[in-house]
């Protein structure tokens, strides 16, 4: 990978983050006819409204408001929460770390389960295993997260009492407890991810198995196991990186619901609280951080993919 390629990717990521920041700012602060009114609600006094307008600088032209906010944000100052009067930044980032714990665990579980299942389904195409796997995948993709979460909670927490229904304990303090509390959320997220990734893996593996180079490898007299593991899997696994990267975006959205249901203090929950309490700086910070995380993850995935797939090396 040349330096120029790297530089291009980084510039693109920067561009993405900037556009996202503009969009988030526009939706939350510029779009509302009267942001102060919507923040304080209907019962606000005219004085309070005026004070808030002055404080937020809502009278200024849009680009001025944005550049003020952007300048602070890009130096790490996310403002003060209107709800807690504490700095937004540190709290959001701490919440992000907890969400990342959840999402990364879910991704690992997904990889461990979905990839082998997808490959097996492809190898046994048309037979019972394949049909069964495909059906489950179909179902998994057709259930919204809140349904899966609720049903799993009903089964594992409420009925069987294996896992706690809500709550969060930091694994750093209490590893066992932390795992037990994270288990349901991770499981919920994994169900949907597994369904999605499994379908992709199956379809990728099928495509690879039909390719000319696999045929050539077989006809060279290589045993089936070698053909599968040395030739086929390398090619089939490559797109998994891209799929996972795309799913991170979906995950970050889903995390909002999951954390709400299971009371996990991650960035999703923080966002929901910010939205319901109309805490503007927190909404802006949370949304920006989420989208930026997605953009950065995608860039890493691109780089990993390019590293592994030499074909893309020269753009």
């Amino acid at each position, binding site marked *: 990978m040349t330096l120029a390629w790297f530089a291009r990717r980084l510039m693109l990521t920067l561009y993405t983050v900037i556009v996202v920041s503009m969009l988030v700012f526009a939706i939350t602060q510029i779009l509302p006819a009267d942001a102060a009114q919507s923040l304080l609600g209907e019962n606000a006094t005219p004085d309070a409204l005026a004070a808030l307008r002055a404080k937020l600088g809502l009278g200024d032209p849009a680009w001025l408001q944005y550049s003020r906010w952007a300048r602070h944000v890009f130096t790490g100052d996310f403002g003060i929460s209107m709800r807690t009067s504490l700095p937004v930044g540190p709290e959001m980032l701490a919440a992000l770390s907890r969400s990342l714990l959840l999402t990364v665990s879910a991704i690992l579980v997904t990889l461990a389960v979905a990839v082998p299942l997808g490959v097996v389904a492809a190898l046994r195409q048309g037979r019972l295993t394949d049909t069964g796997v495909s059906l489950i995948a179909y179902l998994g993709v057709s259930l919204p997260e809140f349904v899966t979460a609720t049903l799993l909670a009903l089964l594992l927490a409420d009925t069987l009492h294996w896992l706690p229904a809500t709550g969060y304990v930091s694994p750093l303090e209490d590893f066992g407890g932390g795992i037990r509390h994270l288990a349901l959320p991770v499981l919920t997220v994994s169900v949907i991810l597994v369904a999605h990734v499994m379908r992709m893996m199956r379809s990728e593996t099928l495509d690879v198995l039909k390719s000319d*180079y696999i045929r*050539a490898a077989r006809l060279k*007299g290589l045993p089936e196991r070698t053909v599968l593991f040395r030739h086929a899997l390398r090619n089939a696994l490559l797109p998994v990186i891209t799929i996972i990267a795309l799913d991170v975006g979906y995950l970050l959205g889903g995390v909002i619901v999951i954390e709400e249901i299971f009371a996990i203090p991650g960035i999703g929950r923080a966002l929901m609280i910010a939205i319901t309490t109309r805490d503007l700086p927190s909404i802006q910070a949370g949304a920006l951080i989420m989208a930026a995380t997605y953009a950065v993850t995608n860039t890493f995935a691109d780089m990993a993919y390019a590293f592994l797939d030499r074909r893309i090396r020269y753009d």
Partner: protein
Amino acid sequence: MIPALAIRNYTLDYVTAAGPGRVLHDISLEIMPGEVLGLVGESGSGKSSLAWALMRHLPDNAREVAGLLQLGDVDLQRLSPRELTKIRGRRLGMVFQDPSTSLNPTLTIGRQVTETLIQHHGLKPRDADALAIDLLGDVDLDNPAEIMRRYPHEISGGEKQRVVIATAFGCRPDVILFDEPTTALDVITGARILELFARLRRETGVAALYISHDLALVTRVADRVAVLERGCLVEQAPAADIFRAPRHANTRALVDAVSRPERRLVHDKPHDQVLLAASDIEVQYGSGGLFRDAPPPATKKIGLEVRGGEILGLVGESGSGKSSVARALTGLARFSGKISFDEHEIHGMGDMNAAYRRDVQIIFQHPDSSLNPRHRIDEILSRPLKLYGGHLADIPGLLNQVRLPASYANRWPHQLSGGEKQRIAIARAFAARPKLVICDEITAPLDVSVQAQIVELLLALREETGTAFLFITHDLNLIRQIAHRIAVMRRGEVVDLLPVEDFDADHVHSYTRELMAASPVPVG
């Protein structure tokens, strides 16, 4: 002496939704050790199916109805999967058509060569590496050690095919099956591969089954030739005899369809006045992106002229820029330079008026993609009539002109064969009553016999209408039969522009000479 490969009374069906379809019917062939048998047939003749049958790699819906397949003393049909992996590559090798898809893009060349050596000869990795380097050197690859470390996309098509051949020969099998190994390569590269094949064959004494659709090519390469027609073996004879004295009607048709430069099909002379003159044409594809530089131009300031009623041939290999010229002349690619047509000067796409677009028509290479799959034939043919002044009632006449029944007007493109679709494309071009028709490799994807029909049709249309042609092709023998003058392009430049009679003179460019050497005139 037992044959290296024996096929006796072999019959094969493919079962489809419509019932079983016979693919091979009672085929009997023998290849003695050290002999090369050429197997010729057009598409649908079943020749590739025979190779898959021998390799035991038939599709799931194949049914072997009868017959025997023997490799030396081994009955191929009775092998267990385990025994089969021992035979494949080791005693029966295969070289495929498209080297860019038969090598795994994520493994190094070295790995893909040594794995067979390790698998079949039990060599240690280090010894296998050394042997692989030797083998790659044997196939005339420069710097084999370096190539071992590369990935397939980093070497050229010709080099890839040499790697595949080296791998096949490396295990010293009894028989190697070659499935159209030069079809996907350029003319000159393909010719070199054939030379390589001839040399290796002499050195190793391997027996081979050489499958191709090109009868002329096969007679250069094989000792005996067998001709397949729709699954039946219609003739088998020594290579020299097949051309000189074909016995079966199908073979005769195939022989007749081969392009022979000495057999001129066009006997008139063009007019003197110049119809289209292009000068300093430089074609540029793609501007830079937001972060990228623009690619280099596809052609380097070339000039051409076509006279009224003339057939100008434009010959070159892939990447020579010949298609780019066609696209520039029809306003499909950006270019700089000047085109003079009918006293009208054109400096860019914007200058091309309706009259120009009517008078200069183009026919594309791939009939599958040049007809809109969601338009019926009558709609496709109605467009030029609507644009250039014609009546919808002319459509049956157009179909008639290209020897297709009028009922085809109600059909959809996917219901027609490749040759028929190409005829529709021709009808569409001639509907405008053009002065110049640009044919961009229109015969390349077609079978030889269909090719001959299309060329004959074009010449007949030319007789009727007096149209000039710019005929782009890589087939030098074909163009020498029909063109008045031929331009040879290489890497964006015109290296030669000669009247056809001068083609075997001494003063031709060295590249032209190479091209001629790579397309020899068939014997007979």
